[in-house]
């Protein structure tokens, strides 16, 4: 079931100036419900523009965006409602924190939704838990936290709105490996428990392979591929042409195949590589024992 559908969406920045630039050119795509979809593309390929289309921050010049079977621009005055359905965590969201305490900052979204006090409190605790924010950190000032912790607070602020669709623009950019794992792991756990549809924009092929069920590839204002992670990462040439790459481990696997090692074709994460090598190893052992 697709929850988001874009039909012939076109958008340009700086219309009628010498700086006019097409950011989305006749984009058609579907995003499946209850899955983690990765959105990859080189810098300036239109990813962030596409993200801002999804909750009506930008209005397409032409084309329609259908979310949950509704054309979101049918009633332009009601565009605010879409923002409660589609939660977006922008790039470097830690710079948008403003409240006196972490608790107040996370509660900002739910408050805008005009929920009851108890409900707000419940959601703040719940989303703080998902993002790994401890109980006593809730009463601290967000400005006293470290960069990684601030990022988690910002993430919790959007999660607390319980959106049907959660969109994250480069959620792990600039974090150390531990921070990356914690943030992305938290998102995965959140999706499993809440059944939210998640879209992650990223440059990291490794993260995509590890956490996403499906991947969409953007290049030069167009969506050039949309399929399961395996399908997309098997198109090595297309990815390289789009200024992207396949995960490092996939290069290792194909180099191994080139020298005659019969390793599986679909090695995209370290875990699958480990499994594949283990299988290879045991089959070699069997051959050895046959002799």
């Amino acid at each position, binding site marked *: 079931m697709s929850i988001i559908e874009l039909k012939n969406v076109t958008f340009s*920045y*700086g219309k*009628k*100036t*010498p*700086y006019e*630039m097409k950011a989305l050119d006749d984009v058609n795509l579907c995003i499946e419900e209850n899955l983690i979809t990765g959105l990859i593309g080189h810098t300036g390929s239109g990813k*962030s523009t596409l993200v*801002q289309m999804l*909750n009506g*921050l930008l209005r397409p010049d032409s084309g329609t965006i259908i979310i949950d079977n509704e054309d979101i621009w049918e009633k332009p005055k009601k565009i*605010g409602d879409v*923002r*409660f359905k589609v*939660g*977006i*965590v*922008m790039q470097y*969201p830690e*710079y*948008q*924190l*403003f*409240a006196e305490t972490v608790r107040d900052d996370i509660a*900002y*979204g739910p408050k*805008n*939704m005009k929920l009851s006090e108890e409900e707000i409190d419940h959601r703040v605790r719940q989303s703080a838990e998902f993002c790994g924010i401890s109980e006593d950190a809730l009463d601290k000032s967000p*400005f006293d936290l470290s960069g990684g912790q601030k990022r988690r607070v910002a993430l919790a*602020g*959007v999660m607390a*709105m319980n959106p049907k669709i959660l969109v994250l623009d480069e959620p792990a950019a600039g974090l150390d490996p531990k921070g990356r794992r914690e943030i992305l792991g938290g998102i995965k756990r959140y999706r499993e428990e809440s059944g939210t549809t998640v879209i992650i924009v990223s440059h990291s092929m490794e993260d995509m392979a590890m956490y996403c069920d499906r991947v969409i590839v953007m290049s030069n204002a167009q969506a050039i591929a949309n399929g399961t992670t395996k399908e997309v990462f098997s198109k090595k040439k297309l990815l390289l042409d789009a200024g992207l790459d396949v995960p490092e481990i996939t290069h290792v696997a194909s180099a191994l195949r080139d020298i005659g090692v019969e390793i599986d074709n679909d090695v995209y994460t370290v875990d699958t590589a480990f499994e594949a090598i283990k299988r290879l190893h045991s089959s070699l052992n069997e051959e050895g024992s046959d002799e």
Partner: protein
Amino acid sequence: MAMDVSLGQYYEGKSFIHKLDPRTKLFFVLIFLVATFVASDVYAFALLVGVVSLAIIISRVPLRVVFKGLKPLTFIIIFTAILNIFWAKGETLLVNQELIPNFLTITIYKEGLINAGIFALRIIVLLIGTSLFFSYTTTPMELTDGIESALSPLKKIKVPVHEFAMMMTIALRFIPTLVDETSKIMNAQKARGADFSSGGLIKRAKALIPIIIPLFISSFRRADELATAMECRCYRGGVGRTRMKVLKFGVRDLIGFLLTGMLLAGVILINIYGNGYKI
């Protein structure tokens, strides 16, 4: 996103006006301002309108761009014009209580109408003239360089001209950055359901807090980073500093100065000897 914010107002071009030395433009704008206020004869005023129109044509900045710059000031222009209608007293009465009974208690004279029109036109000419020379055809950097150079004699009496110019350069440099940042933060808060366009005055002012606080914090952070970066490159003020682009007067600047002088002389002469309607 940066593509959406035009870099200052600069409109790229290679026209005569673009190539003028910024100091020539400063001189012109100064004289032009004086001339616009001094002009008291309709023909002198027409000369100024003509000069501005000619300058627009020479600069090749499209009319659409020029008028777009006026848009934010429409309210002020209309407001002052309307005030002027009621202000002036003249000979030809158009509206008063006796002529049109029960129509409030206002009196309007024909002269008031004309004055209002000319007043509005005066503001428009002034705005177009200055913005054409200062922002559409001059980059902010050229402009501050020009100001620094023009004011450099003041260094002799210990006015920190270089420091002021540097402050201005930095401020101008960061306007697009801040605009960009503001729209990013606004989008982020809108995504969390913020509503900036409904409710009363107090509610709207309160709605701005989630934008202003992050903006302040990031501005301080930027200022800090910039100061460190400048110190790392051994910046220590203006003494002994050389420039990448050295300002130079050329033949076209001589022409510019001459034309400017002629404009002022023309306006004064028409004021004295002209027989047009006196404003």
